[in-house]
């Protein structure tokens, strides 16, 4: 069952001189209930922006240009006893609620979305280590979240729940009375995770959940997340540049580049049946994905600036396989299975299916082979000189 | 009125001359030095006949009651009359004290007060001052006098008072106390006998003017400095006066109440008061005086125009005179200065040791600019060291010349070639030709002088130095905006060569007296035009006092005097007698005690050398007990000082004392210091209009 359905979402950052950064351009993907979905890409590709935009947490100059974010859940005041949208709300054309009860988060006001934040969608920010306020006790910060969304809860109950949550992530309940600076890095991370579960959200966005941590703690945090997912049945949207982490935990994922989704599908498809030059390049640069004896090859060049980009494929400047067509327009999502089986390009109709934005997926075998060859990438560098 | 004699026997340094002498309270100097009088007033000089405003009202008809509010720009320092050095305090504690004799501000005669009668006998006609010399016989009032705390007054208190003074010698009264050798009960017809070590023609003013102290309050005070009457159980000074201090918040508010003493205070009923024009006997008529202290002159004046106060201490500031004239409630009471503003010169320095050179300094002073422009007509042109109100000792008295404007008072008038431009040529040739004004008639620097009024001549009869003019060399002149074409040579040298520096004028910061600062600039500019190298140094009041009166380390300075004695003699003695000057002619060596840091009033060193001095005339005047003769001698001394020119009398303030006369009557005008020196007199007779 789909929990989140993002359709053609475009996000811009306004710049003083009147231009705009196209941080995310007509991005579509969907997350099912109980699923772990990954957004992967180099830094600056728009994945964090995308995640933040879901709950309107963009910086001041960021805004949603177009698109919908359909979420299976609605505002408390629009919901009936079961938490589903009331029929009257669905019928009201002024209210962004669809026939199936999904609400368009992109169309909510700031005030409305605040009621959805944390209660329905919690977010663990990129710098979770610094996400705890140094001047308040850790427990109080969890209590604050609980009381915000469940005002009928008494303070004592909230405190009990906070301790309970901490215990669940492996922190002694008594540490609830400590301050953040008394916690270790991993403990802080787990405390934030505990806080994220305070209101049992349907969706948990974890932005680079492991970046600043050492490997052992990384693993523990990932385990923690999986455990919580089992316990609470929460869907997790993981955002990371670390393709190996993604491979480990995601059910499905989308590879982003330059504000566009380059490839999406089930994790095993993406890694097993890689169908996009960018993903191929990305795979090359991570040790765990490719076999151990192979040299790491990084994609030459730097990511493009997204300031008023031209219409061509975002990746073409760095792509060793770029052809004439790539300069004219960014390729749409093509169904990979279809292309492989028929050898023809067909635009993907099912978001869930394995798709790739590349004009050359009809020659997939060739691409995959060439991509493994280091020279493909370095030669390209020589050419571009 | 006698009560304010305690204050007026003390001279206070006045910090500036003229208009802004009343400094803003902030500067703080005024509280200390008592820059109490001097301001300026409405365009005209006091009425010509100089008779006090008459208050022909029968005492019994006068309405009683009401509270008179007086504003002050500076806080009083203490209620301890012996330790106080502030005029702002004396107008408060003055209401609680009485002295032996009282002066009237109209005829300046001494009248009975606590002492009913007195006489004197000169023991030693030689006038030597180092031995018992004069005996004063005193009768003390014994009928129904009480202290303001209710205790009965006895003759014993008087004995105690003078012995206490002799023992403690409070600084402010030292000049009056030091001559007293002893005071004892008289074994004859008189009550008391006081022995002085020098003949003093004005003993009734000096020695009898001291406040009489209650024995029961002071006998346990071992050091007068440490006594604070406001901290006692009575809460204020105990004295024989009409008032009781009922509230003392020195920074903001003080109240002196008269109601407590109703019926007890009888000294204002003394018969002599009925004979003095303008004086109303039988007061005080109001219930209380409230003194309100303001931090700034602006706030003070604002309070006056808002009606928060009925009057203010001393005189209204020039800038508000017109406002006061337009205000229907206010009336400006005219009065005279009790002192003068001056620029004084150090006679120990070359060429200031030469009378002729000093006289030239007078020629360069643009009196019109000062009196009419900077002071807006509220200063009177200065000449003699006695203010115009003290007519008896002014040299014009007895001649047909007019007060202040007669030609003999214009010997040192501004020599101008066109308005406000000094006549450089005439002044230079006065010096170069060996001229000097000695008192003989003649034409000096282009202006007629008919000769001295009293026939006295100056100490010098010819110039001491040779003057000539040559190329400009001194730096201060080379850089001067005035661009003089020649510089003076004294015996062939420039002044800068002789002294190592140009002549330097000490003056106060412009904040305290902006007009003075401007005037000095103008004057120095004229001097530089003539070719005299001069510079100025801005120093605070305290520094100026130390430099001028303490160490005599100055060339020229500007200051002022107030509360001078109307009897001239002791003013002349303390300000112009060589006894009161440090003699720096003796080479100063270490441990040399002859030149002390004592603040001698004769800072100029007038009379110290051979080329100046009026010691002989002052001595004679002081020891002459006959008033007429004494005044004659005083006038001669005054004119001698004028001609010798140790000090340039810049101007006398025209007093314009603002009073809300729509509510209050009875104030007396055309007296010296109507709102300051004789404020006590006003308090005794002010009454609420019906």
């Amino acid at each position, binding site marked *: 069952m789909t929990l989140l359905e993002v359709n053609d979402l475009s996000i811009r950052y306004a710049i003083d001189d009147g231009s705009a950064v196209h941080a995310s351009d007509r991005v579509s993907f969907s997350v099912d209930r109980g699923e772990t979905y990954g957004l992967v890409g180099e830094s600056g590709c728009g994945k964090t922006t995308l995640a933040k935009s879901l709950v309107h947490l963009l910086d001041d100059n960021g805004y949603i240009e177009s698109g919908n974010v359909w979420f299976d859940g609605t505002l408390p005041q629009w919901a009936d006893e079961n938490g589903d949208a009331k029929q009257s709300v669905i019928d009201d054309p002024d209210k962004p609620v669809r026939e199936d009860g999904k609400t368009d988060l992109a169309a909510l006001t700031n005030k409305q979305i605040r009621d959805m934040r944390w209660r329905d969608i919690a977010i663990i920010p990129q710098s979770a280590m610094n996400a705890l306020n140094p001047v308040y006790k850790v427990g109080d910060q969890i209590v604050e979240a609980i009381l915000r969304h469940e005002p009928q809860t008494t303070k004592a109950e909230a405190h009990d729940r906070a301790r309970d949550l901490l215990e669940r992530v492996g922190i002694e309940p008594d540490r609830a009375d400590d301050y953040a600076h008394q916690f270790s890095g991993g403990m802080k991370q787990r405390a934030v995770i505990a806080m994220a579960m305070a209101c049992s959200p349907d969706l948990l966005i974890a932005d680079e959940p492991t970046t600043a941590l050492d490997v052992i703690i990384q693993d523990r945090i990932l385990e923690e997340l999986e455990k919580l997912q089992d316990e609470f049945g929460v869907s997790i949207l993981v955002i990371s540049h670390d393709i190996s982490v993604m491979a480990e935990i995601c059910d499905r994922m989308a590879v982003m580049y330059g504000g566009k989704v380059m490839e999406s599908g089930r994790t095993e498809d993406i890694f097993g049946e890689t169908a996009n030059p960018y993903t191929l390049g990305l795979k090359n640069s991570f040790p765990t994905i490719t076999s151990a004896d192979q040299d790491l090859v990084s994609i030459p060049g730097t990511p493009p600036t997204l300031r008023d980009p031209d219409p061509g494929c975002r990746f073409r400047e760095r792509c060793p396989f770029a052809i004439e067509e790539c300069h004219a327009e960014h390729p749409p999502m093509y169904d990979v299975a279809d292309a492989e089986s028929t050898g023809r390009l067909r635009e993907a109709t099912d978001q869930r299916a394995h798709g790739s934005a590349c004009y050359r997926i009809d020659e997939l075998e060739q691409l995959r082979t060439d991509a493994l060859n280091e020279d493909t990438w370095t030669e390209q560098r020589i050419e571009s000189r | 009125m006698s009560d304010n004699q305690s204050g007026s026997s003390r001279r206070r340094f006045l910090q500036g001359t003229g208009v802004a002498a009343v400094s803003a309270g902030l500067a703080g100097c005024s509280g200390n030095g008592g820059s109490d009088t001097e301001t300026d007033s409405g365009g005209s000089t006091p009425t010509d006949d100089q008779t006090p405003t008459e208050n022909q009202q029968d005492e019994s008809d006068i309405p009683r009651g009401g509270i008179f509010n007086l504003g002050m720009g500076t806080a009083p320092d203490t209620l301890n009359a012996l330790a106080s050095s502030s005029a702002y305090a004396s107008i408060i504690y003055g209401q609680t004290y009485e002295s032996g004799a009282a002066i009237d501000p109209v005829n300046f005669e001494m009248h009975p007060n606590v002492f009913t009668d007195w006489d004197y006998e000169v023991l030693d006609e030689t006038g030597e001052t180092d031995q018992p010399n004069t005996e004063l016989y005193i009768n003390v009032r014994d009928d129904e006098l009480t202290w303001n705390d209710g205790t009965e007054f006895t003759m014993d208190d008087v004995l105690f008072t003078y012995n206490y003074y002799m023992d403690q010698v409070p600084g402010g009264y030292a000049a009056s106390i030091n001559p007293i050798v002893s005071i004892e009960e008289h074994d004859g017809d008189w009550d008391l006998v006081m022995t002085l070590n020098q003949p003093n023609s004005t003993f009734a003013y000096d020695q009898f003017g001291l406040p009489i102290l209650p024995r029961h309050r002071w006998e346990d005070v071992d050091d007068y400095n440490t006594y604070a009457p406001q901290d006692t159980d009575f809460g204020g000074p105990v004295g024989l006066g009409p008032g009781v201090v009922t509230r003392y918040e020195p920074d903001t508010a003080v109240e002196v109440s008269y109601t407590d003493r109703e019926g007890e205070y009888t000294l204002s009923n003394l018969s002599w008061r009925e004979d003095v024009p303008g004086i109303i006997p039988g007061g005080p008529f109001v219930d209380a005086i409230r003194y309100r202290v303001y931090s700034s002159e602006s706030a003070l004046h604002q309070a006056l125009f808002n009606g928060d106060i009925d009057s203010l201490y001393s005189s209204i500031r020039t*800038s508000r005179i017109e406002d006061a004239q337009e205000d229907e409630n206010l009336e400006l009471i005219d009065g005279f200065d009790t002192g003068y503003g001056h620029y004084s010169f150090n006679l120990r320095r070359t060429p200031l040791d030469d009378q002729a050179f000093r006289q030239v300094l007078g020629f360069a002073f643009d009196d019109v600019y000062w009196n009419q422009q900077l002071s807006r007509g509220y200063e009177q042109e200065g000449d003699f060291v006695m203010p115009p109100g003290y007519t008896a000792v002014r040299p014009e008295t007895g001649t047909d010349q007019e007060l202040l404007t007669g030609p003999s008072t214009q010997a040192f008038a501004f020599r101008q070639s*066109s*308005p*406000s431009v000094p006549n450089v040529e005439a002044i230079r040739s006065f010096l170069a030709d060996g001229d000097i004004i000695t008192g003989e008639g003649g034409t000096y620097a282009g202006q007629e002088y008919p000769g001295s009024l009293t026939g006295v001549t100056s100490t010098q009869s010819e110039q001491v130095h040779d003057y000539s003019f040559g190329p400009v060399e001194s730096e201060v002149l080379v850089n001067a905006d005035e661009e003089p074409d020649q510089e003076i040579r004294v015996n062939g040298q420039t002044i800068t060569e002789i002294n190592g520096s140009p002549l330097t004028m000490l003056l106060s*910061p412009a*904040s305290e007296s902006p007009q003075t*600062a401007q005037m000095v600039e103008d004057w120095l500019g004229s001097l530089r035009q003539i070719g005299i190298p001069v510079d100025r*140094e801005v120093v605070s009041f305290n520094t100026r006092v130390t430099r001028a009166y303490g160490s005599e380390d100055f060339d020229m300075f500007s200051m002022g005097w107030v509360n001078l004695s109307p009897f001239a003699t002791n003013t002349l003695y303390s300000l112009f007698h060589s006894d009161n000057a440090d003699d720096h002619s003796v080479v100063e060596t270490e441990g040399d005690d002859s030149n002390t840091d004592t603040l001698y009033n004769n800072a100029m060193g007038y009379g110290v050398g051979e080329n100046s001095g009026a010691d002989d005339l002052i001595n004679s005047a002081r020891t002459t007990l006959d008033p007429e003769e004494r005044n004659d001698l005083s006038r001669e001394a005054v004119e001698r000082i004028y001609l010798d020119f140790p000090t340039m009398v810049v101007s006398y303030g025209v007093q314009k004392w603002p009073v809300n006369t729509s509510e209050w009557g009875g104030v007396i005008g055309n007296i010296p210091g109507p709102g300051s020196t004789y404020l006590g007199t006003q308090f005794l007779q002010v009454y609420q209009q019906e």
Partner: protein
Amino acid sequence: MATQQGDSGTDGGSVRRRWEPRIERLKRGWDRYTEHRIGVVGLVILVVFTLWSIIPGVFAPHSTEWIAYIGEPPIESRLTAEQVRSLPHPPAFGDPFFAPLGTNANGNGILSLLIYSAKNAMYIGLAAGLLSSLVGVPLGLISGFYGDTWIDEAIQRFVDIMYGLPFLPFLIVLVAIRGITTTNIIIGIAVTSWLNNCITVRGETLSLKERSYVESAKVAGASDTRIIFRHIMPNVLPISFVFLAQDAAGAVIAQASLAYLGLADFTANSWGIMLENIKSQGYIFDAWWWLLPPGLALMLMAASFYFIGFSMEDVTNPQR
């Protein structure tokens, strides 16, 4: 031919190459500076005041000696009593004389005094600001560089002591000791205002000291002085310029306060003295044309320093 070209090209090129990045940097800084409107406004005000200081005659309708009714010196006539009484005169435009901001009680034109006084404020502001930077910055550098040694401790204790002395009264004592001249006032202000510079620079130095390039310089055997002046100071300078501007503003106000308390050189033309005069001559509430302009000028001068300082802070702040 080709070689020659190359040579001259290298020559010109090296100079250009050396300067280009700096010019480029300056240009970028300037661009960033001009993004701040208050910075530009401050600069404009300061330019106006600078022009007033350098060529007051061009702006002022009269000299400072000009007197209403009489005119410019040489003055060879006197005001009549009636004319004297009309002073201070409100703004007049030709009848009976031209004084667009009126006159003071002496008949001098307020506008002319205002313009001629800019120099004094400018001088005091810049001199005192510079001086306190010259004291505060080196002390802060030394204190920070030798952080947690006795040198640092000594300097910090000294700063503590100076903080214990109230600025204005302390300034009054200093001026009283040394006499009331503009130079002494500047010295007094500098002596009392270097503290903030010292503390801020110290903090900055402390953190810079830990940076890797300083560490590597140390390892390379650079002397302490070299590290301080070569590696740390250039990074501290921007923030000290900010403080210089703020100190200059503070100095302008402090001088006016001293003038209010009567401690200023009265012959110097200054805004503080103009205000002091209106107080001591008693026209505060009677002559708005005399009361307002000097205060506004003081305010604008100080504000322009602040404006520039805060805009520069933004420009130099690496975070933005």
